[in-house]
């Protein structure tokens, strides 16, 4: 019986997410079609001037001769069948392109999330427990740098220092070009290499992953450190913590069962929000580390006015965003039973 409110809560949140996803398709569609510039001209180049018939034919082939509302309906219909259209630059189905690039970005963003959660929460805890001591000052400084330094600059700097100067990390791309990618299963090179037992590729892929993931996570680490610190400090001052201490509970129990659990709700909120900045950060980090992810694909699609590809990327990114928000909501429910009843 206890799961009922949680289940109802999940269904309600799921429906809201669906509604939001539909809203996203509408907004992306309108925005991409508002862009000044003619996709036909962008794709046909010189021929666009020499041969107006070619332009008309191209527009007809890509369904651009129909009125916008009808184009939207065609797009929605395709979407329901899992068809995102054909990219005008790669001439492949957008879904195929995305299937190739999204895992790369997920691998990068996923690693960055894990790093930020582990380091951010740990740093925040340490800073709170050592309040106003050296560790606190150092960690607060680190978090300030993380939050305030632009990611692309950090990426360039990290590339220069760790790859070029110190020669600690490997360079561009996801894996050493001499080795090549592992047999594709999930699209995550580290996982695929491990599954295939190719440990040489695994270590190369992991090596390539570390620096961009760290750079990408720095902002989130900074944010999480600050929020964890203040949340933990607030909980530490509560009566029930003092009562627990007075009762002689071990420090470990107080820290993990009392303090951290109560502090988790604001931490999760911030982590969810920070994910958005993490996604936008991938575009630049991918460019600098030549990471073959969806960021570069999005950039290329945008500059080539490849409308189906832009739409596809928009949908995936917002889909991930919605999923994260849903996850955050669910986690609230799991951590704090009061939330389920609302």
């Amino acid at each position: 019986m206890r799961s009922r409110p949680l289940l109802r809560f999940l269904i309600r949140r799921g429906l809201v997410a669906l509604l939001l996803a539909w809203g996203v398709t509408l907004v992306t569609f309108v925005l991409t079609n508002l862009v000044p510039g003619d996709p036909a001209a962008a794709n046909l180049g010189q021929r666009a001037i020499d041969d107006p018939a070619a332009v008309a034919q191209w527009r007809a082939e890509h369904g651009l001769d129909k009125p916008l509302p009808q184009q939207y309906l065609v797009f929605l219909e395709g979407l329901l069948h899992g068809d995102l259209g054909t990219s005008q630059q790669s001439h492949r189905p957008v879904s195929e392109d995305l299937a190739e690039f999204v895992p790369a970005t997920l691998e990068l963003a996923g690693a960055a999330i894990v790093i930020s959660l582990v380091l951010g929460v740990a740093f925040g805890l340490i800073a709170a427990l050592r309040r106003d001591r050296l560790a606190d000052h150092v960690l607060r400084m680190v978090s300030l740098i993380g939050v305030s330094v632009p990611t692309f600059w950090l990426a360039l700097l990290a590339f220069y220092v760790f790859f070029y100067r110190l020669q600690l990390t490997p360079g561009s791309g996801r894996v050493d070009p001499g080795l090549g990618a592992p047999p594709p299963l999930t699209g995550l090179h580290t996982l695929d290499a491990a599954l295939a037992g190719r440990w040489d590729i695994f270590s190369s892929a992991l090596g390539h992953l570390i620096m961009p993931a760290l750079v990408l996570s720095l902002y989130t680490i900074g944010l999480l450190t600050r929020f964890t610190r203040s949340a933990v400090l607030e909980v530490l001052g509560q009566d029930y913590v003092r009562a627990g201490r007075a009762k002689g509970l071990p420090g470990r129990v107080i820290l993990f069962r009392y303090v951290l659990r109560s502090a988790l709700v604001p931490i999760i909120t911030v982590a969810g929000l920070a994910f958005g900045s993490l996604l936008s950060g991938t575009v630049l980090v991918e460019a600098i580390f030549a990471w073959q992810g969806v960021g570069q694909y999005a950039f290329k699609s945008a500059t080539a006015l490849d409308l189906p590809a832009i739409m596809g990327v928009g949908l995936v990114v917002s889909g991930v965003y919605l999923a994260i928000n849903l996850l955050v909501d669910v986690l609230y429910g799991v951590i704090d039973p009061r939330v389920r009843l609302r």
Partner: protein
Amino acid sequence: MAPRTHLTALLLATALALSACSAGGSDTPSAGSRTLVVDTSFDLKTADPGRMYEATGLFIGKAVYDTLLTFDGGDVTKPVPALAKSYELSDDGKVLTLKLRSGARFSDGSPLTADDVVFSLTRLRDLKGNPSFLLDGVKVAKTDDSTITLTSKTPNPALPYILPNPVLGILNSKVAKAHGATTDAKDKAEQYLNSASAGSGPYIIESFNVSNQVVLRANKKYYGDKPAYDKVVIRNVEAATQKLNVQRGDSQIALNLSGDQARNTPAGLQVKRTASANVIFLFATRNKAVSKTTANPKFAEAVRKGVDYKGLLELAGEGSVQAPGIIPSQLLGALPPEQAPKRDVAGAKAALAASGLTDPKVELEYPSELTVNGLSLQPLAERVQANLKEVGITVALKPTPLTTAADNYRNGKEEMGLWYWGPDHPDPSGYLVFLPGKPVGLRLGWKAGADKELEAMGDKAATALGDDARKQAFADLQTRLNDSGPYVPLIQPGQNIVTAASVTGLAYHPVWTVDLADLGVK
């Protein structure tokens, strides 16, 4: 307290483990394994020779598809045999006869025949792809199993210079047809040709991705000399990162460094500095509906005399040269450097006074994110703005995203523009498009009949036969364009290619940048 100590220890251990992992992946130079890593900034759309038109595409196309004729290294003044062992242009310049060599075969082992040649060239012409115009009005026919004739309506002395372009690469017609290739606009082979290659070149496509990376493998069935590298990885990398990669030994070739970036290259690396064949130019529209100011020919003269070319060269950095005319310095018919426009502020002011315009204000549009050989157009535009200010022309800069700017440029909406032109084939005839009534001329509202004398010079240049006559005709044409045309040729930025010490045989080529099959290992 215990938990804190554990936590710190754990963090330290994690950090150490992470850095150890990363160090493991770093020490993997590719020199011994015969893998060549080339970093370049992609402008890639397709690997289908019939549709490609972009620098990165031509670079890949050259490695994968053989053409009837080619050029030797970077010398573009004389086409030499490739799949055709000899060629002969008829006295009237209309019929080009090519004899095919024997023994050439495709990467699947099947022999390359005259039918493949006829199919490939016809497909290119009738596909209505971006490069189709190269064979406009050229009839392709097979006379016997080893003879091909290309017949043009008018004398076409440029044809031998067009044939080496990778877009005229010969396809395995059986394979291509099986994957939807036809000789009309219904052709559907592009998707296949983007994933596999159907050519006879020294390399085959192993994987192809327009945004990220292309991997080539040596063609085991290649009939010519085996290429030195078994595998070539071509990566899309930012110019700044390209430099660090090649310095660290992570790649062997960085194709797109600007003059500034190629300066102070450490010992042990080789730098190939040459003027590229890209000409950056200004233009002033002749379309009165777009601008009454710039349509005044005296205005264009004032701009031409007002620009400080030496200053622009300093900005452009090493390897760059002033463009003597609209035809780049490497090509037949280029003007000698001393005939290039010069700065003459007094002359510019006089021209402006003669134009009857007072305090003209114009808008200069250019693609904001486009770089030509690593050189951004932004600083050039700023310098031009400052130069013209001294003459009395107020220029408002209008940096615009490439696709939007290209739209405005193509549709003739720009009052003044800053653009560049790279040669489709290293023959001056490609530059006739700048004349009135021709594609580029029309972008400026310069319609046919606007300058009959110049157009007659263009017709003469197009049909002149023999190197000397052609050279003279194109030089005359450019002298006239430099005097009274709406264009202001500025500079040819340098092409700076940095390679590892181990790479030998690199030559810059204006059409395909580098021929991978020429490269060797030291």
